[in-house]
């Protein structure tokens, strides 16, 4: 009887694991609001802050999809469904700021598709992201989550290449080793992820989609490593400021 119970339990557990090989996670973003000092800041600062906060309203209304099937996943913004604030100025820029990310856990491939002057397929490996899992935990909605951090190579106009700090909260009860952008590989789904001034959070989980999950590995564009891609990008310093911005 005991052996029968054990077998049934194992069967049930494995069914759960296998049943979570296809689905869609919907993420949203909370943008950190910028501020200014009314008494001391210049008019240009105030105008800039007001404009950025306006853009943040658009960004915070956009749904981002993480579709996955077996070992592949794709993180993207569906331009056909995100039309709520599409008439607002800046909508296109905000939409374009979300790149498409492809992941294959079998081949360990990560691809970020960036469309700027050209289309770049910036590739890296899943094991390039090394997580530091902490003992810190918190409840996010119905999920008990644990904190993990990592530092990844990034580039900014005003900084050049630097190490960016990422903070993720993952839930081991949801055995999907994925998250927003190409952050994954944790022993549970990333429920919340802080990336500079943006915090991604799970809005909805659909593990029984009644629609087809289509994951196409990006193929059109220039395949390039992260390091080589960053080498193409300019860095503005106090010394070359006039070349890029003004005199």
């Amino acid at each position, binding site marked *: 009887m005991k052996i029968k119970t054990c077998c049934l339990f194992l069967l049930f557990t494995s069914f759960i694991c296998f049943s979570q090989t296809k689905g869609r996670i919907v993420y949203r973003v909370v943008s950190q609001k910028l501020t200014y000092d009314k008494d001391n800041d210049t008019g*240009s600062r105030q105008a800039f802050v007001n*404009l950025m906060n306006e853009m943040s309203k658009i*960004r915070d209304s956009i749904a981002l999809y993480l579709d996955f099937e077996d070992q592949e996943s794709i993180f993207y913004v569906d331009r056909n469904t995100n039309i709520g604030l599409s008439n607002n100025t800046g909508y296109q820029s905000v939409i374009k700021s979300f790149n498409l990310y492809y992941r294959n856990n079998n081949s360990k491939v990560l691809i970020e598709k960036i469309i700027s002057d050209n289309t770049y397929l910036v590739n890296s490996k899943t094991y390039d992201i090394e997580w530091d899992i902490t003992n810190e935990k918190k409840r996010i909605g119905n999920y008990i989550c644990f904190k993990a951090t990592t530092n990844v190579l990034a580039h900014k106009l*005003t900084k050049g290449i630097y190490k960016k700090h990422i903070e993720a909260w993952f839930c081991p009860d949801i055995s999907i080793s994925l998250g927003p952008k190409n952050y994954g590989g944790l022993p549970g789904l990333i429920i919340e992820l802080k990336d500079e001034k*943006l915090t991604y959070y799970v809005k909805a989980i659909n593990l029984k989609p009644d629609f087809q999950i289509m994951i196409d590995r990006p193929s059109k564009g220039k395949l390039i490593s992260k390091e080589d891609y960053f080498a193409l990008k300019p860095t503005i310093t106090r010394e070359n400021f006039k070349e890029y911005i003004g005199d």
Partner: protein
Amino acid sequence: MATKILEIMRNRVFNLIFALLFIGSLTSMSHYDNSISRGDCVEATFDAMEEMQDLGFCDEVAGCVGNYHYAECTGWPVTIEDYKSCLE
């Protein structure tokens, strides 16, 4: 009479010299203020561009807004529509 005329002319010359010196000092002070404000504007523009990229905007958009931000900061007439032109 001649002495009086000479005195008046000397006073006028001295007044003219003082006036020129005064105007000169004003100009140099304003140049000094201008160079400080330009430095502040460079820093403020750097901060603005960095904040934009923290919010996910690409180099092109951040650079475009940075241009207008610096222009407005250094006294050029920039409208909100100018900023918004970077976002379309």
